[in-house]
């Protein structure tokens, strides 16, 4: 509302004269930037209004100098025929001015609109869906209409973007990027392959060298594929470029994959609050103080993103964190944020990154690189795999007498990473720790309620840890009770609360218990069988490959033998 109010007087002003133009142009850039497909409009004036949402005395300060020549050029442009797409860089600042605020509606447009400049605004009669993104058609009567529309837009968007930074992704933009990501790859934790991303970004009609540069900037782990943050970065850079911002030489800190918005107080407790406080104090130089306003609004969505990042940390691409530290070009305090993410994954990632590098020598294909980067996944899935193979003894020991009902281990993370579900009896420690770290990170309060009582049990019944989240509380109780009398892990004092309750029940059903034990054992054996057969097939394949190589080597040797002998 305030922004609108501020906007209105300015609108009147701008009607009066052209002078305010340069001052406000700078602010509006950020709002414009968000929307990739803008029908190229004419007016720079509507943008003034958008800029007012920033209501920032600060931003215009830096910009007016730049904008003055542009606006003057712009005015000349008004009377020149629409420009061709091939516009020189000085034009580009005025070019993004051509993107109207009304096009903000396009924020939710699908990718299809990417190509055609579908005018999102009814008030823009001129069909600027022409491919000439940069064509400017100034029309005098339209400004009034467009301005009105843009004011409405601004009112909606007012609270969203106070940031002056063109390299900061706003919430709307992030949502948009998320949707686009989902259209390419439903799993937010997975990667978009290079070719897929290439086709996608080529639709933006940016020149290939620029796209290439954008890719280089955003693919920080250099694996030929984009994770979700990398994708957001790339998309954001494309948006910026289309709005006329020159591409940076290096990735701005705000676009780094691990960048966390400052002031995210609602961050799950797993993240130390101290680093966040540090974060706030050390805002990027040149960062607008109004960021705080946007920060408040972004707070709500932040936890979602950070948890996403948490899971992503744990499940998918830990390697992306190490590059954050490596290209420390800006030396901004915010760099610290990237290190504020759980430190252990970073250490791990540093190793992984160094490890992936040597591999690049042997295979330059993207697929191989991908596979190899995939190889050091998060610890939890891996131990499960090894345990599934090697710990059959442990499992047997653990569940010799216990008649545990089978529980499909529903590790949400493992499911996400596509591993086979580990055998019902999970190894105690890694999943437990994972759960422990995940629990604080989990935002699902409902689950928390369920998990709280289980918490006490976790130390004893680690093998059940994954399931509580997904199964009802009740079904587990019988299982746990069965475990009680037999479990060697159960510490008696902590077992007491359940023990008394379950003792009666346990005594009543020995026969089904034994049956279940047998079933458990059968299942376990089956799983180890499956694992072993898998191993076997893999080894067979490797054997075949090696055989083939041997044959080729031998043939070559024979070819060379006559040469060397003569």
């Amino acid at each position: 509302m305030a922004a609108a109010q501020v906007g209105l007087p300015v609108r009147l002003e701008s009607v009066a004269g052209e002078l305010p133009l340069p001052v406000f142009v700078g602010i509006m850039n950020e709002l414009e930037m968000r929307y990739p497909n803008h029908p190229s409009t004419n007016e720079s004036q509507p943008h003034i209004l958008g800029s007012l949402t920033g209501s920032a005395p600060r931003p215009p300060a830096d910009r007016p100098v730049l904008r003055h020549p542009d606006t003057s050029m712009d005015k000349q442009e008004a009377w020149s025929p629409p420009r061709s797409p091939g516009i020189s860089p000085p034009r580009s600042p005025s070019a993004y001015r051509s993107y109207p605020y009304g096009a903000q509606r396009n924020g939710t447009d699908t990718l299809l609109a990417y190509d055609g400049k579908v005018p999102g605004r009814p008030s823009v009669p001129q069909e600027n869906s022409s491919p000439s993104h940069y064509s400017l058609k100034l029309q005098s009567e339209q400004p009034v209409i467009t301005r009105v529309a843009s004011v409405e837009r601004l009112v909606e968007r007012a609270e969203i973007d106070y940031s002056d930074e063109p390299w900061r992704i706003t919430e709307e933009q992030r949502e948009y990027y998320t949707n686009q990501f989902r259209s390419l790859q439903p799993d937010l934790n997975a990667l978009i392959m290079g070719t897929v991303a290439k086709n996608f970004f080529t639709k933006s009609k940016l020149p290939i060298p620029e796209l290439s540069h954008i890719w280089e900037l955003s693919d920080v782990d250099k694996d030929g594929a984009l994770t979700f943050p990398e994708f957001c970065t790339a998309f954001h850079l494309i948006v910026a470029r289309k709005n006329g911002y020159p591409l940076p030489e290096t990735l701005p800190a705000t676009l780094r994959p691990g960048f966390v918005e400052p002031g995210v107080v609602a961050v799950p407790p797993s993240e130390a609050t101290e680093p966040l406080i540090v974060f706030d104090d050390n805002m990027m130089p040149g960062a607008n103080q109004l960021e705080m306003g946007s920060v408040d609004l972004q707070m709500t969505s932040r936890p979602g993103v950070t948890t996403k990042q948490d899971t992503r940390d744990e499940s998918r691409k830990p390697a992306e964190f190490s590059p954050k530290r490596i290209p420390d070009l800006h030396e901004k305090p915010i760099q610290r944020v990237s290190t504020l993410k759980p430190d252990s994954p970073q250490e791990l990632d540093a190793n992984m990154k160094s490890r992936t590098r040597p591999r690049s020598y042997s295979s330059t294909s993207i697929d191989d690189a991908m596979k190899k980067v995939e190889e050091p996944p998060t610890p939890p899935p891996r131990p499960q795999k090894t345990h599934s193979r090697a710990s059959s003894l442990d499992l047997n020991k653990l569940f010799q007498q216990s008649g545990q009902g089978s529980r499909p281990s529903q590790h949400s993370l493992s499911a996400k990473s596509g591993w086979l579900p580990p055998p019902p009896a999970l190894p105690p420690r890694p999943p437990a720790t994972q759960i422990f770290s995940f629990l604080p990170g989990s935002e699902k309060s409902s689950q928390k309620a369920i998990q709280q009582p289980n918490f006490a049990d976790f130390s004893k019944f680690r093998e059940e840890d994954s399931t509580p989240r997904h199964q009802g509380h009740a079904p587990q109780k019988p299982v746990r009770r069965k475990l009680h009398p037999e479990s060697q892990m159960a510490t008696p004092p902590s077992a007491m609360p359940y023990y008394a309750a379950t003792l009666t029940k346990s005594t009543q059903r020995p026969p089904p218990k034994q049956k279940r034990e047998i079933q458990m054992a059968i299942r376990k054996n089956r799983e180890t069988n499956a694992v072993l057969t898998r191993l076997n097939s893999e080894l067979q394949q490797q054997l075949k490959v090696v055989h083939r190589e041997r044959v080729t080597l031998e043939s070559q040797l024979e070819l060379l033998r006559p040469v060397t002998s003569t």
Partner: protein
Amino acid sequence: MAVCIAVIAKENYPLYIRSVPTQGELKFHYTVHTSLDVVEEKISGVGKALADQRELYLGLLYPTEDYKVYGYVTNSKVKFVIVVDSSNTSLRDNEIRSMFRKLHNSFTDVMCNPFYNPGDPIQSKAFDSIVSTMMVQAC
């Protein structure tokens, strides 16, 4: 500190060549071209063992009175050639190796970019910056 750095494709055409502009660039182009013969000789010379045994770093290809030429070939037959000023005697073999390693790394990064078609000239700015760090700073 190299005087000239070149990346040559498998088919022996240059993907990237850059030299210190103080001296005639043509001279360096010619030098790199002639060094290709030596590279070929080296990689074809190892008949018995295949790529696994052949080392990527080829070492000093040949010295002239002004400068030395070092070579490095990847498993996909992409060659890197570094021309170093002879007067720069402080450069040790290890340093040359590390230069090649950096080159190879940044070349891999360029390759990973889906917008780069193998066989195109390398226009990546990141690659350029890596190369600049290794070149003799033009005074």
